[in-house]
């Protein structure tokens, strides 16, 4: 029983990680007042670059950073359009959602002999599990109950023996929360998102802040993509991201544009995924239709949203381009 619960918690953490990164990206961009519907495209870009760099270099950390960088570059386009040229931010984001997968699959075909799937990352090239060896060592060297506590498929092992990305994601949630609510730059970001004109009057560079936030948003979405392609699986393929970016977007709105709120919403989606895996196992105690179970978090989200009435939560200047002269 306890092991079952641990399995579900562990799997939840695993599946929610890519969403958490990407939703954090959404939180940063939208708090500065720029809608980022292009998360899906940026995530796809990150997933491809991550898998490709990991395949060629065998270094997961380099791959992870490259994924963030590539997606941030894609986000730069969104920033140029929506900050400098006062674009319709939704339209620009939609463009990113065509460009991201387009570029990723184009390059995939170039690098991998016409395949829309990258080759599997070699052993050691995927995200390491920081506690994996420690748990093995402990289970072998501690005697009796203490040793058994760290055995494979024990409660501790099931929950904490995770890819490094899982821990990085959780730390990132805290970091983004800290920056947004406890630092000067965070205050500036939120000021720009709420009332850019006042912020400008106070000498805050609205353009600079928004550029920074949109690119940071892309970086996090890229991390999210890499968390899929180099941690959960070990390659990139056409259907890998399909929709994760949009779910992250929804989770961010569900979480009321706050990092911790977005995290919980992502975990809800992750938990549903975990339940599908859990009940899908041969050893499952009850047989529930996987399809019906998969629907659950989406239905739940709709129900919860009708309850909280999230009207007033969006940053006030969200989606409104800031123009110094005319305002």
């Amino acid at each position: 029983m306890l092991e079952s619960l641990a399995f579900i918690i562990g799997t939840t953490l695993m599946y929610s990680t890519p969403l958490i990164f990407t939703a954090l990206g959404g939180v940063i961009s939208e708090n500065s007042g720029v809608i980022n519907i292009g998360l899906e495209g940026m995530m796809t870009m990150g997933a491809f670059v991550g898998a490709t760099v990991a395949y060629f270099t065998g270094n997961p950390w380099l791959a992870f950073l490259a994924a963030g960088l590539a997606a941030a570059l894609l986000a730069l386009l969104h920033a140029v359009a929506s900050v400098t040229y006062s674009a319709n931010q939704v339209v620009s984001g939609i463009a990113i959602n065509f460009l991201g997968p387009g570029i990723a699959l184009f390059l995939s075909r170039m690098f991998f002999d016409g395949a829309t799937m990258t080759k599997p990352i070699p052993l050691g090239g995927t995200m390491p599990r920081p506690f994996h060896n420690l748990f093995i060592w402990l289970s072998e060297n501690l005697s009796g109950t203490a040793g058994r506590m760290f055995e494979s498929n024990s409660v501790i092992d099931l929950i904490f023996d995770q890819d490094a990305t899982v821990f990085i994601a959780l730390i990132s949630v805290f970091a983004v929360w800290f920056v947004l609510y406890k630092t000067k730059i965070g205050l500036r970001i939120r000021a720009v998102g709420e009332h850019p004109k006042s912020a400008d009057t106070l000498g805050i560079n609205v353009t600079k802040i928004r550029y920074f936030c949109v690119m940071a948003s892309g970086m996090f979405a890229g991390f999210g993509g890499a968390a899929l392609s180099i941690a959960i699986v070990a390659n990139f393929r056409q259907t890998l991201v399909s929709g994760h970016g949009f779910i992250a977007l929804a989770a961010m709105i569900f979480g009321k544009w706050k990092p911790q709120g977005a995290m919980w919403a992502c975990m809800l989606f992750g938990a549903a995924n975990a339940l599908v895996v859990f009940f899908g196992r041969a050893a499952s105690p009850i047989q529930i239709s996987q399809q019906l179970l998969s629907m659950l978090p989406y239905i739940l989200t709709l129900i919860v949203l009708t309850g909280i009435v999230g009207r007033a939560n969006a940053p006030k200047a969200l989606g409104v381009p800031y123009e110094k002269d005319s305002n």
Partner: protein
Amino acid sequence: MKLFNETKSKIIGLFLKENLKFTLISIFIGFLIGSITLAVAGFNPFRAYAIMFSGVFGRLNYIAWVIIRSTPLILTGLSIAFAFKTGLFNIGAEGQFIIGALVAALAGYFIQLPAILHIPVVILLAASAAALWGGIAGYLKAKFGVHEVIATIMLNWIALYLTNFVVTLEAVQRPARPVSHNIQPTASLMFFQQWKVTEEGRAWLLDNFLAREILRTPFNAGILFAVILAVVVWYILKHTTLGYELKAVGLNKHAAEYAGINVQKNIVRAMLISGALAGMAGAFHVLGNTQRVAILAAMEGFGFNGIAVALIGGSTAIGVVFSALLFGALQYGGTKIQLALGAPTEVINIMIGTIVFFIAIPRLIKILLAKFSKKRGEDNA
């Protein structure tokens, strides 16, 4: 007064032309970026475009394929454009398409009726179901203030899993295949579907090259319905009170409310109609082309592509028809360069992304145009 009206229509005409100009320039830039991408990757862009061109217009059956591919895009494009007019962003056309396709496949298989009744009944059921699906998002927005983007994203996934659930039911699934049973021939919109495989039909087609070319494909009546619906949408928006109210809500919610228009009601109405249009896209896709629905591993993208179609079409009914045809042609032609040159077909996505990107920033195009004309002016001087 007459002068005023004349000026007004002139300004509107100019504005339309201006919009069209920006769209055409965006499309041009899309092709430009596409050729640069191909050239950088080591392919001859002129050859690629030549192959695409002959791959689209070279044979009658190619053109038929483009039309078949464009049909659902016209309707999802209309669906999204219609919601845009009311200020709603219907990201849920994808899910409404899925529901429409599912209901069409079920009603097409289970109901037994003569074709003259069967087809309208199936379309009506599919459109109604999808209208309700879209209406849920409208209702949630009107009643609880739930953002339609998040509601429709959720509804897309629910629709996907619902389809997968229903298709795997014993009564629905074709034994040992990940698809539903084929619809009854009475529900099919495919032209001469039965006749073209009979001996008599084959013999006739052997002598008639043009007909043979077209009927090799699942060419179907969907395109006629799609164009008729485009006209209907244009008429509703332009010439009815309903259209006027919807547009008023889209332009300024508060002003509309002040003028006595029920904003909530119109949000729901817009989503119902938008959903019905996307649902019919799914229905025609099944009745005309696939004849069944399959288990979905991922979203198929008809709804998402419809967003680009609506944007490139300037959210007007006529614009959507042309942009869907362009989209369908690019997609179909793109597969040809993969086969002939080994050039990634995804260059099409890059082109479409570029087009939409530049449509988002008319201001940049204006600046570019101004610079361009200034330079020319200097050259002349």
